[in-house]
């Protein structure tokens, strides 16, 4: 069920501008409030969207990590990583 927290983090990037700014400045601190597993937290901080996707995170929501360029992601970097999950 903590995967809901990953999706909440992504969703908040769009709808909570203060959280978005904190994620852009200090993501580790910004994520403190979210009940993430260690693996989920590490994957978000590493911008490891392939792992998050395999865990079941919603791709549309994860796109906000790229759109708002948090955790080292840009649209091209995100794309390169997510494309590794292609069947």
């Amino acid at each position, binding site marked *: 069920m903590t995967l*809901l927290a990953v*999706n*909440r983090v992504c*969703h908040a990037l*769009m*709808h909570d501008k203060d959280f978005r700014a904190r994620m852009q400045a200090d993501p580790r601190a910004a994520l403190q409030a979210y009940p993430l597993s260690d693996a989920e937290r590490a994957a978000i901080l590493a911008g490891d969207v392939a792992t998050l*996707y395999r865990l079941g995170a*919603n*791709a*549309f*929501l*994860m*796109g906000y990590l*790229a*759109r708002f360029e948090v955790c080292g992601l840009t*649209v*091209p970097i*995100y*794309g*390169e990583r*997510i*494309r*590794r*999950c*292609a*069947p």
Partner: protein
Amino acid sequence: MASIVGAYGLPHTPIFPFKVAEEGASSPTGALFARVRAAFDAARPEAIVIFDTDHLNTFFLDNLPVFALGVDESFTGPVDEVRGVPVKTIPSHAGLATHLRRAAVHGGYDVALVQDFAVDHSVYVPLHFMTPELSLPVVPVFINGHVPPLPPARRCFDLGMAVRRAIESYPQPLRVAVIGTGSFSLEIYGPRVSPGRPDGVPDPGWVDEVSDHIANARIDALVAAATEQRMLHAGNVGGELLNWIAMLAFVDGRKPDFIDKQMENGHAYAAWSIPS
């Protein structure tokens, strides 16, 4: 009695308002919308019912309806930072919406009630091009086309038919246009995006097949082909086709006046005039 005066299929690509503002109304995208707008205006609608898939902005995964209907005098949107578009107030029609939802629930469709709500680009972008002054009341009917399990295509067509019958039984005179919005093949931020892009069109063959079914009014064949597996094979938002399928319940098996498919975007523009 209210009447259905036209049915329209449209995309809702969030960059389109900005793109057409930059490139002009005679640009390719501007011209595609203008063609539908001309048909829309000729039908002289007084209200809009739009079938739409929310992109987890009106709803979220903590409480996700399969079907829902907005019931209020107005709502706001777009709330997902559509480039060049501020958040606006969009007029609605609580009387019509209440009537539609009551009829749908009594007809066996479990349509969630939504009040005091906001919508994202997927409702706003079609309105931006059909009613730029937001001068017509709009009732949104939401179908979950993104987060599996998706409702069956037949169920969505039948929901469309229930909403149609409800409009036709609304006791006030009102000319209603119906819009179905979404892509046929589109991947957003999933593994099948094109290199360097946030999106991709994984299944152009399905765009051809869907467009061909619609162009030739083979609605039963389209509904039969549009399984969850088939739609998701066409992209992680391929279930948006369900909004078109609900809209097709309004056209009585007729061919569209036109359908313009856009292979590079995995979507289409179409219009049906409906004789009174």
